[in-house]
């Protein structure tokens, strides 16, 4: 991170308040002028009807769909049959194994890569699926995930490599990838059924659309980031382009590619839940079935299973990416279970020494077993070929965990088949947290002080934020808004993108989506503003207090991975069926990146900056507001960027609880199986997302440049 450390020389300038007030003045003037324009124009100015009639885009899309249905079905059905076969085989295979096999399969890599803590968490997590009686559905979700992530990784790496070799292909693919990520899934889920069939195969296709982009992007990025010196050196040794790729570039890009896998897994899981809308079985269906009967506790159990799955996958793939070769100083006792901070407490040391011994013994035993197996297999291999003997023995000896794991699985299978039937997860171990959760929600719904607070929030958000902004945006003439947005984009990003944006806005108007696009813009803006107001202080708090950070982290993980269906209904109980409920739900989903990136931004500031500021006589609060906060702004802006994208993604879900705007249009279109209408509104959301993304990115860049960060 040292590379990005801000220059210490920037501090006096920041502290002296050498800030640029022109931006604030411009903003104020802009708002004032816009208010005048709104008053002068008097009432709503919808997009001209004639233009709308001249472009019957919904019809065009539906005709195109029909044509595709007639001519391409044989092809898509062929693909889906293969995918469906893979899915069903995997699911059936996992279901028929005695339950400890799955535990071993998931816990061993967790232990091997993530250490004892992750191993323990994984084993508890997997057993939780069984304990709340969701073993079978969790396996369905796992199989869907497994097959789709494999497909994503395979296609994503190939496309990423092509991107890295060809600039034009990369430039062409970029807007497509943007669209794939932000286009609401409800647009393509129902049409996918006719092409790919109900359930698994369609779900896998939808997951690939949604989760493929990070895989392509990060492969491309990883390969492009390989240092020129290394390429030069390889070339000097006479490497062919193919050798260069397979022997230098791809191995060097592995960390980035693994990060791509991590992102792909997380996104795939999010969509695996939504896929219940097209009949994909699994945890998503379980949550949906519970929530349609308003069984909050039951749906929460299902949601928790998904959160656990997400955390396991996230931590495991992150751990695989970590450098495990760091050398520990001699005599240093690495704490495997308890926090390392406690290493001055004798009791903690005793516990950890015990754990360390056990860990090393088990590790030694694994290695010994693997060696033994290696010798045995080597001896067998020797019958075929002498050189193979060495290779086989060495291969086994290096993979202690894997070999032992396979032996354990074999043992479980043998026991299950011949000695003791293990079969399904034991019924006696089942637990249930449904009732307490139901009770808490029911009690809170009728608890007057709590409801008073929620109703106050609802009134404040509606009266002072949402309603005025809605009115403001809807009543401004469309050409004024389009012109203003074009101007802002031109000044911030560039002329080319400004032209694209203006054309896109015209397209939105011509598709008869102007007014609802403004609703979406208003709702998203209000949600993002609330996220900033809540998220920045929480982020700062986490940067200053380790304890707070430790408490907050699992909550943020849960907020990001818990399927929205689970909390939509309690939020509705508390806040009532009104537009504010949709805003609150959006805030829950979009808040985590805001908090995380604020914490990151402040935490990244080198200690010496704190020192320098103090030597200038700055107090803690002053340092925070005058030095640290401005320096963290690039990171915070990145948080805003992420929050905006997530808030827009949530627009697809909020129509389920009275959300308005483009998301509702998509949802209504899905309900009437009108692909054209859904696609138009989906393109509207995509355009908003891309424009807002580029805008915030370019502001972040400018801010970084101003601070001398890059």
């Amino acid at each position, binding site marked *: 991170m040292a590379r990005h450390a801000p220059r210490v020389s920037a501090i006096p300038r920041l502290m002296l308040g050498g800030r640029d007030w022109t931006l604030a003045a411009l903003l104020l003037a802009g708002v004032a002028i816009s208010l005048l324009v709104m008053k002068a124009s008097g009432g709503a100015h919808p997009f001209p009807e004639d233009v709308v009639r001249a472009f019957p885009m919904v019809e065009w899309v539906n005709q195109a769909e029909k044509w595709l249905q007639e001519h391409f079905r044989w092809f898509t059905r062929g693909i889906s049959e293969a995918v469906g076969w893979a899915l069903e085989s995997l699911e059936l295979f996992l279901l028929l194994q005695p339950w400890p096999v799955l535990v071993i399969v998931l816990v061993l890599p967790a232990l091997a890569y993530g250490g004892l803590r992750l191993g323990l968490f994984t084993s508890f997590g997997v057993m939780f699926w069984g304990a709340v009686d969701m073993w079978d559905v969790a396996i369905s979700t796992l199989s869907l995930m497994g097959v789709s992530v494999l497909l994503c990784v395979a296609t994503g790496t190939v496309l990423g490599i092509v991107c890295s070799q060809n600039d034009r292909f990369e430039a062409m693919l970029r807007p497509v990838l943007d669209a794939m990520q932000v286009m609401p899934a409800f647009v393509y889920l*129902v049409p996918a059924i006719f092409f790919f069939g109900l359930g698994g195969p369609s779900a896998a296709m939808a997951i690939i659309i949604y989760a493929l982009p990070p895989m392509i992007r990060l492969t491309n990025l990883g390969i492009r980031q390989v240092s020129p010196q290394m390429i030069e050196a390889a070339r000097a040794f006479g490497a062919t382009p193919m050798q260069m790729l397979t022997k230098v570039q791809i191995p060097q890009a592995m960390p980035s590619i693994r990060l791509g896998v991590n992102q792909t897994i997380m996104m795939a899981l999010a969509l695996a839940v939504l896929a219940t809308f097209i009949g994909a079985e699994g945890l998503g269906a379980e949550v949906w079935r519970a929530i349609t009967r308003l069984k909050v506790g039951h749906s929460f159990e299902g949601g928790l299973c998904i959160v656990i799955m997400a955390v396991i996958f996230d931590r495991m793939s992150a751990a695989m990416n970590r450098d495990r070769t760091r050398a520990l100083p001699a005599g240093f006792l690495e704490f495997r279970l308890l926090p390392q901070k406690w290493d001055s407490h004798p009791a903690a040391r005793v516990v950890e020494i015990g754990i360390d011994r056990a860990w090393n013994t088990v590790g030694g035993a694994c290695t010994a077993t693997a060696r033994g197996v290696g010798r045995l297999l080597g001896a067998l291999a020797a019958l075929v070929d002498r050189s193979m003997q060495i290779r086989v023995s060495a291969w086994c000896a290096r993979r202690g965990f894997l070999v032992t794991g396979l032996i354990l699985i074999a043992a479980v299978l043998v026991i299950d088949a011949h000695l003791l039937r293990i079969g399904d997860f034991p019924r006696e171990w089942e637990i249930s947290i449904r009732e307490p959760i139901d009770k808490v929600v029911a009690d809170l719904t009728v608890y007057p002080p709590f409801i008073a607070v929620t109703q106050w929030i609802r009134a404040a958000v509606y009266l002072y934020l949402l309603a005025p902004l809605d009115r403001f945006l809807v009543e401004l003439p469309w050409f004024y808004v389009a012109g203003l947005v074009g101007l802002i984009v031109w000044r911030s990003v560039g002329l080319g993108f400004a032209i694209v944006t203006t054309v896109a806005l015209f397209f939105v108007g011509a598709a008869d989506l102007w007014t609802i696009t403004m609703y979406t813009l208003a709702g998203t803006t209000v949600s993002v503003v609330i996220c900033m107001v809540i998220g920045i202080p929480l982020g700062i708090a986490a940067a200053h207090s380790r304890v707070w950070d430790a408490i907050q982290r699992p909550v943020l993980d849960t907020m990001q991975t818990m399927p929205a269906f689970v909390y939509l209904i309690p939020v509705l109980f508390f806040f009532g069926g009104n537009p504010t409920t949709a805003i609150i739900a959006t805030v829950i989903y979009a808040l985590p990146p805001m908090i995380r990136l604020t914490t990151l931004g402040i935490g990244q500031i080198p200690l010496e900056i704190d020192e320098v500021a103090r030597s200038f006589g700055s107090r803690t609060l002053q340092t925070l507001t005058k030095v640290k906060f401005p320096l963290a702004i690039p990171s915070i802006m990145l948080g805003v960027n992420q929050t905006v994208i997530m808030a827009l993604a949530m627009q697809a879900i909020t129509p389920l609880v009275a959300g308005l705007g483009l998301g509702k249009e998509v949802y209504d279109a899905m309900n009437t199986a009108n692909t054209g209408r859904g696609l138009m509104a989906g393109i509207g959301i995509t355009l908003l997302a891309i424009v807002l993304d580029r805008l915030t990115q370019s502001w972040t860049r400018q801010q970084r440049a101003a601070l001398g960060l890059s």
Partner: protein
Amino acid sequence: MKALNRTGLLASAGAALIALGSTPAAADLFKSPVADWTGGAVTCEIIHQILEREMGHRVKRITMPSGPAVSEGLRAGDLDYACETWPSYSTTKEKYVTEFGGDGSIRYYAPVGVIGQSGYYVPRYLVEGEGALAPDLKTWEDLNRYKDLFKTLESGDKGRLIACPVSAWECKDHDRAAGLDLEYELVELGSETAHWAELKGLYARKEPFVAYAWEPHWIHATLDLVEVELPPYSEEAWPVSDWPEDVTYNYGTPSFEEEHPDVVALIRNFRMSNSEQAELILAIDVDGRDLDEVVEEWLENNEEVWRPWVPDQG
């Protein structure tokens, strides 16, 4: 449910294997969606169990939200039959069902026997008992008098009427409200789930509300609601009137009827009245018992009812 899922899965895997060998015997595994309301699920479960017990078929039950995906699944041939569509709630009938101008890819086989009736409802605590806030609220003509009671932050001077949740349903709330001069702001909550959640929350807090609802529905087992009388239905008056009766149908594709006339004959013979179904719904939603268990018990105790539905085989 768990055991059923497992057998379904095994069966489907078996069918997939057989399908690979392309033997026609694979066809006796049927796929049907589980409706996401109890009534629809009960109807289908009875049919599934008769098919499995008496006719030697197997059925894979697919949990999914009812709606366009079910229609698309049928049309695409991935589902075989489905239960209890309510025509006025079907958002895609104009696209697929011949009688409504669709392309005929879906066919309504026969009425279920369950008749739906929609209306506007208020909670009983609002109109009856001590401290009732609107004791005289009986018909639509009284609604305007009590509009202040139903005012909210967002509804301005008007009262708030929680209308049909999904805009594609045939409720025509706006035409009705305009025709009856109701000084009410109509609120559409987007999904059925949100609609019931809102009612449940308001009911728990004993707040006043007037909302769209229908019968038979499990919500009436949880909330005590009273219907507000509307002008009687007639074809000329609609939609400025009460709703017409909603005759519900079991449905599937024309090709499924050609391939499996015996199954469709069973579906055509099936009949169940509102009160018969209500008994089963109560056992599931109020007593919290499992769907398959309740249906199994019903089949055991009511053989004289369902035996005649089973077509002669052979």
